[in-house]
C-alpha cells in the first residue's frame, strides 16, 4: 500500500516536472509551424512583387525636363524671362531586347493653333523617336530619329546635366543635330580599356525635319569612335566623322559636306575637363558668289570644379562659320563663367556670364547673362 502511494506521489511529482518541458516542446512545434506558414506567405508575396515589378518594367514611362531663364543681353537674343524648354520623354521597354524612346520638345512655350501655324514663335519639335534592338549585350541597332552620335554635346546635352544653358556655338552647326536613319552601335573591352563605336546612315541634312523622306541625292553616313581608358575617374577620347551630299534644294551653299571632329572628357576627383573640335568642309556647286570650298570650324574647352553642391566652371568657345571670309560670319570667341548650384540631383540653378567677341567686323561684340532653374522630371 505504502509502495503504491509512493509510486503515485512520484508520478505526480514527475508530471509536475515534465509539464513545462512538454509545454516548451509544444510551443516550439507551434513556432516551427508558424515559421513555415510565414515562409509560404513571404514566397507568395515575393511572387506577387515580381509580377508587379515586371508589369511596371514593361509599362510606358513618362519623364522629361523643364527650365526657365532670365536673360540680360545686348546681343542678338531677346532679354527677359524665357520658358526655354519643356521636353517630354516617353519610354517603353517593349521586351528584353527592344526599347522605345521619344522626346517631344516645346521650346519657348509655343502657342500653336491650326489657323496660325506660321505665326508661332518657339518650337514644337519631335526631337527623337527611335527603337533600340539590343541583340547582344554589347551590340545594338537603333532606327528612327536620334541625336547625331558625334562628339560629346550632341548627345549629352540635357540641361539638368550640363554646365550651361548656352550650348557651344559649333554644336549643330557642323555635325547635324539629328539623323533620320539607322545606327549600329558596339562596344569592345580589352582589359580595362573600352572601345565603342556608332556607325550610322540617314537621310542627311534637310532644311526641315519632316520625317517623310530625303531630299538628298545620296544618303549621309557617319561614325563616332570612343575610347574609355582606365586613367583618372574618367578619361575618354574619341573621333567623329560625317559625310553628306546635300541636294541643291536643301541649301545651295552646302552641296557636299565632309566633317571630322575629335573630343575628350576627363574627370579627376573634383575637377572635370571637356573639349571638342570639329571641322566641316563644304564643296558648293551652287554657291551664289563663288564656287570655292569653304570650312566651318569650331571648338571649345570647358573646365569645372565641384565642391559639395556647387559647380564652378569656365569655357572658351570658338566658332567660325566661314573660314575663308569674315563677312556674314556668325561665329565668335566666347568666354563664359558659370556657377551651378545643385539643390538636389534633379534640380539645378545656374548663373552664367558669356562675353562674345564676334568675327564679323560689321557686328558688335555682346554679353549675355543667364539665371536659370532647371528641373529633371524623372
Amino acid at each position, binding site marked *: 500500500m505504502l509502495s503504491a502511494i509512493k509510486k503515485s506521489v512520484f508520478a505526480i511529482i514527475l508530471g509536475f516536472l515534465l509539464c513545462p518541458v512538454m509545454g516548451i516542446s509544444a510551443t516550439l512545434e507551434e513556432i516551427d509551424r508558424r515559421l513555415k506558414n510565414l515562409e509560404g506567405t513571404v514566397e507568395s508575396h515575393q511572387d506577387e512583387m515580381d509580377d508587379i515589378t515586371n508589369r511596371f518594367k514593361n509599362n510606358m514611362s513618362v*519623364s522629361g*525636363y523643364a527650365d526657365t531663364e532670365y536673360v540680360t543681353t545686348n546681343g542678338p537674343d531677346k532679354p527677359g524671362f524665357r520658358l526655354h524648354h519643356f521636353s517630354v*520623354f516617353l*519610354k517603353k521597354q517593349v521586351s528584353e531586347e527592344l526599347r522605345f*524612346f521619344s522626346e517631344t520638345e516645346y521650346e519657348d512655350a509655343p502657342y500653336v493653333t491650326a489657323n496660325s501655324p506660321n505665326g508661332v514663335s518657339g518650337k514644337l519639335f519631335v526631337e*527623337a523617336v*527611335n527603337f*533600340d534592338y*539590343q541583340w547582344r*549585350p*554589347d551590340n*545594338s541597332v537603333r532606327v528612327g530619329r*536620334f541625336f547625331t552620335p558625334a562628339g560629346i554635346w550632341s*548627345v*549629352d*546635352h*540635357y540641361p*539638368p*546635366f550640363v554646365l550651361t544653358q548656352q550650348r557651344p556655338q559649333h554644336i549643330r552647326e557642323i555635325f547635324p543635330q539629328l539623323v533620320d536613319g539607322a545606327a549600329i552601335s558596339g*562596344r569592345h*573591352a580589352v582589359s*580595362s580599356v*573600352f572601345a565603342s563605336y556608332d556607325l550610322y546612315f540617314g537621310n542627311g541634312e534637310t532644311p526641315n525635319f519632316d520625317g517623310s523622306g530625303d531630299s538628298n541625292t545620296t544618303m549621309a553616313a557617319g561614325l563616332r569612335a570612343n575610347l*574609355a581608358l*582606365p586613367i*583618372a*575617374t*574618367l578619361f575618354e577620347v574619341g573621333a567623329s566623322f560625317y559625310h553628306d551630299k546635300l541636294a541643291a534644294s536643301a541649301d545651295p551653299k552646302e552641296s557636299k559636306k565632309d566633317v571630322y571632329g575629335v573630343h575628350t572628357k576627363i*574627370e*579627376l*576627383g573634383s575637377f572635370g575637363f571637356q573639349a571638342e573640335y570639329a571641322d566641316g568642309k563644304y564643296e558648293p556647286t551652287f554657291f551664289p558668289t563663288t564656287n570655292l570650298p569653304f570650312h566651318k570650324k569650331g571648338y571649345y574647352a570647358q573646365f569645372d570644379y*565641384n565642391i559639395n553642391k556647387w559647380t564652378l566652371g569656365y569655357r572658351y568657345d570658338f566658332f567660325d562659320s566661314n573660314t575663308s571670309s569674315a563677312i556674314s560670319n556668325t561665329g565668335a570667341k566666347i568666354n563664359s563663367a558659370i556657377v551651378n548650384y*545643385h539643390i*538636389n*540631383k*534633379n534640380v539645378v540653378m545656374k548663373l552664367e556670364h558669356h562675353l562674345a567677341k564676334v568675327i564679323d567686323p560689321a557686328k558688335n561684340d555682346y554679353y549675355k547673362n543667364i539665371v536659370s532653374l532647371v528641373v*529633371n522630371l*524623372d
Partner: protein
Amino acid sequence: MRKLYIALFLLASLLGMHAALADPIAVIVNSANPHQLSLDDVKSIYADRAIAWAGGGRIAVYNLPADEAAAEIFARKVLGMSASEAAAAESNRVVSNVARNPQQMKRDILVVAIVARTPNAIGYVPKSKAEGKPGIRILFTLD
C-alpha cells in the same frame, strides 16, 4: 542625474553612428557566380561600360540610395565621385537614352535578398548586412 542619462545617450548615439560609418562595404554577388572581379571591374559595371558577365548574361546591377552612407563610401572608393554625382551620371545616361544597362536602386536589406536569389546580380551593402547570409558571396570589402 537626468543630464547624465542624456550625456550617456548622446555618447552611445555617437558611438553607434561611428560604428555604422566604420562598417566596411561588401561588394556581393550570388554564391553561384564563379567570377572574381577587381575594383576596376566593378567600376566598369557601375559606370555602364561592362554590362555582361564573361560567360554571357546581362549583369543585374543594384545600387543603394545616394543618401545612404554606404552609397557615399562606395561611390568615392569605386567611382571616384560623390554618391550624388554618381546618381546624376546614371540619371543622365537614362535621360539621354544611352544607358545600356540601367541600375536598380534598393535598400540594403533588399539588395542582399535579391542578390541571394539572382545569379546574375551584383550589389554592395554594409558588411554587417552581408556576413553569414546564405546565397551570397562577398567579392571584396572596402574599408
